[in-house]
C-alpha cells in the first residue's frame, strides 16, 4: 500500500512537468510577437524591447528555460510585468477568498448532491427521480454567469436576503463571511452538483440491484440504514472519483464566479492579468491551479485504499 502511494505521488511529477513546459513554450511559440502584443497597441520600439527583456525573450531559449525552471522549483514564479511585484506574492495575497469559495462549494455540493442521487436511485422512475434528473440535465447546460445573475436578481435585489456582491473575510466575523459565500457557492457548484448527483444515482442503482441489499431489506432493516450504510458505502468509489474529476469544474468556474460576484480572489487576478496581458501572472496561476487539481486527484487515488479494501495494488 505504501508502495502504491509512493508510486502514485511520483506519477504527478511528469504531469506537472508537461504543464510547466507547456506554459513556458506557449509564450515562445505564440504566433506573432508576444512582446509587442503585451506592450500594447501604440508601444514604442523601446517599450517592446523592455518587455522582451523582462520576459527574458532576448536570451537563448534553453537558458531562459533553465533559469525559469530553477526559480520555479524554488517557489519563484517570476515578476509581474506591470506592477513589478513577485507573482508568488500576488497569488498568496489573493488565495484566501478563492480557497474559501472552493471549499464551501465542495461542502455544499457534496452535502446536497449525494442525498439527491441516493433519493433518485431509491425512487428510480418515480417523480422524485424525474425532478432530480431534470436538475442534472439543467445543471450541465446552465452557464455559471446566468445562474449567478439569476440568484443575485432573486435573492439579493428582489428579496434582499443576501448581499449583492463582494466578499467578507472570515476575520470580519463568521456570519457576514458565510452570507457572502452562499450565492457564489451555489453558482459555482451547480454543474458540480449535477455531476455528483448523476454518478451517485447510477452507482447506487447498480448496488441496489444486488442480492445483499434484498437480504438486508427482507430481514427488516430500516430503509435509511440500508441505503446509507449498506448501499452508499459500496457505491462510493465512483462517487469519490467524480468528486475528484469535478474539481476541474470548480477551478474553471472560479474565474467566472469571482467576476460575477466581485470576489477579489485568484479568478479576479486571472482576469485582471489577461486584460493587462500580464503573462507571468497567468503563467503562475496556471501552475498553481493545475497543481491544485493534480493534488486533489492524488488524494482521491489514495483514498481508494481506505474506501475499498478489496482493491489491491
Amino acid at each position, binding site marked *: 500500500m505504501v508502495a502504491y502511494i509512493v508510486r502514485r505521488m511520483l506519477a504527478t511529477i*511528469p*504531469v*506537472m*512537468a*508537461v*504543464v510547466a*513546459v*507547456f*506554459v513556458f513554450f*506557449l*509564450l515562445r511559440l*505564440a*504566433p*506573432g510577437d*508576444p512582446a509587442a*502584443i*503585451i506592450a500594447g497597441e501604440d508601444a514604442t520600439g523601446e517599450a517592446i524591447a523592455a518587455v522582451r527583456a523582462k520576459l527574458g525573450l532576448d536570451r537563448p531559449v534553453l537558458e531562459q528555460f533553465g533559469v525559469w525552471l530553477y526559480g520555479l522549483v524554488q517557489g519563484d514564479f517570476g515578476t509581474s510585468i506591470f506592477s513589478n511585484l513577485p507573482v508568488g506574492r500576488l497569488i498568496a495575497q489573493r488565495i484566501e477568498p478563492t480557497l474559501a469559495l472552493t471549499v464551501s462549494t465542495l461542502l455544499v455540493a457534496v452535502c446536497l448532491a449525494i442525498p439527491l442521487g441516493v433519493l433518485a436511485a431509491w425512487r428510480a422512475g418515480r417523480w422524485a427521480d424525474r425532478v432530480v434528473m431534470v436538475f442534472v*440535465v*439543467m445543471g*450541465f*447546460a*446552465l*452557464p*455559471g*454567469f*446566468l445562474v449567478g*445573475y*439569476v440568484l*443575485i*436578481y432573486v435573492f439579493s*435585489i428582489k428579496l434582499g436576503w443576501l448581499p449583492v456582491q463582494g466578499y467578507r473575510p472570515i476575520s470580519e466575523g463568521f456570519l457576514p463571511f458565510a452570507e457572502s459565500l452562499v450565492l457564489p457557492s451555489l453558482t459555482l457548484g451547480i454543474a458540480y452538483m449535477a455531476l455528483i448527483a448523476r454518478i451517485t444515482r*447510477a452507482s447506487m442503482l447498480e448496488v441496489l440491484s444486488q442480492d445483499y441489499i434484498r437480504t438486508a431489506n427482507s430481514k427488516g432493516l430500516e430503509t435509511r440504514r440500508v441505503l446509507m450504510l449498506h448501499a452508499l458505502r459500496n457505491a462510493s468509489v465512483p462517487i469519490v472519483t467524480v468528486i475528484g474529476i469535478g474539481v*476541474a469544474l470548480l*477551478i*474553471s468556474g472560479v*474565474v*467566472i464566479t469571482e*467576476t460575477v460576484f466581485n470576489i477579489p480572489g485568484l479568478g479576479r487576478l*486571472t*482576469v485582471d*492579468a*489577461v*486584460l493587462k*496581458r*500580464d*503573462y507571468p501572472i*497567468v*503563467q503562475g*496561476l*496556471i501552475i498553481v*491551479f*493545475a497543481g491544485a*487539481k*493534480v493534488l486533489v486527484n492524488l488524494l482521491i487515488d489514495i483514498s481508494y485504499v481506505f474506501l475499498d479494501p478489496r482493491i489491491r495494488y
Partner: protein
Amino acid sequence: MSAVIEDVTASRPSSLEALGHALRRNPTIFIGATLLALLVIMAAVAPWITADPFRLSPINRLRPPSERWWFGTDQFGRDVFARTIHGARVSLVIGLSVAFISSVLGLAIGLVCGYFRAVDAVVMRVMDGLMAIPSILLAIALITLTRPGLGIVIVAIVIPELPRIARVVRSVVLSIRSQPFIESAVSGGTGDGMLLVRHILPNTLAPLIVQSTYVCASAMLIEAGLSFLGAGVPPEIPSWGNIIAQGRTFFQIAPWSILIPGAFLALTVLAVNMLGDGLRDRLDPRLARRM
C-alpha cells in the same frame, strides 16, 4: 460534426437506417435535434428577421422588453433581440468548428496512440499534462499572447478539448485491438494501415460522435465564458458572452440584456447535450455506463 455523421453512414450503410430508427424511437434525440435545427435556422436567417444589431439609438437606451423591442434595448439603445439572434451565429460556428476540428485531430491521435504502443506512452503523458490545466485557463493563456479574433478563440478551445476526444478514441482502440476479429484479420495478412482504417476506425465512430457533441456544448460554454471575461471574440462582435459582459454594468436596471442571451445559450447547450445523451444511449449502451 454533420460531416462525421455522414462518414458513418458512408462506411456502414446499415447505420443510416439505425440513425433514422434512433430518431423515431428516441425522444431525447428528437427533441435535441429539433431544438438545434430551429436554432440553426434562426441563426441562418438572422439578418432578414431582425433589425440591425449594431445600430445605436441613445434616446432608446435601457428600454424594457415591449412590442417594439421584444427583448428590450441595452445601454447604447441597441436592440437586444437583434443582438441575441445574431449571437447564435457566433456560438454555433464556434461550437461546431471546435467539435469538428478536435474530432478529426483527436481521432488521429487516439488511433495512433491506441495502435502504436511506443507513441502512446509519450503522447498520452502530454495529454495528461494538458488535461491538468483547467480548460478556460488554458484558453486564457493563449489569448493573452495573441491578437483577439474568432480563429484564435477556436484554437484556444480546441487545445484543451482535444485530449478528451483522443482519450475516448484510444480506449476504444485498445479494447477493439484485443478482439478475435482483429486477430483473424492480422493472421490473414492485413497490414497496419488497412487494419486501422477498415476494421478499427469504424468502431470508434459511435463514441466519437457522442463525445464530439459534448465537446460542442462545452466549447459554446467556454466561448461565452471567455467573452464574458473580456478574453474571447472581439467585443464588437455580438456573441452571447459579449452581450452579457456589456450588460453587466446595468444589470440591476436592465436584467434582460443578461438573462435573455444567457437563456438562449443554456437552451442551445441543452439541445446539444440532449442530442449527445440520446445518441449515446442509442448508438452504444455500454458507453452510457462507462462515462
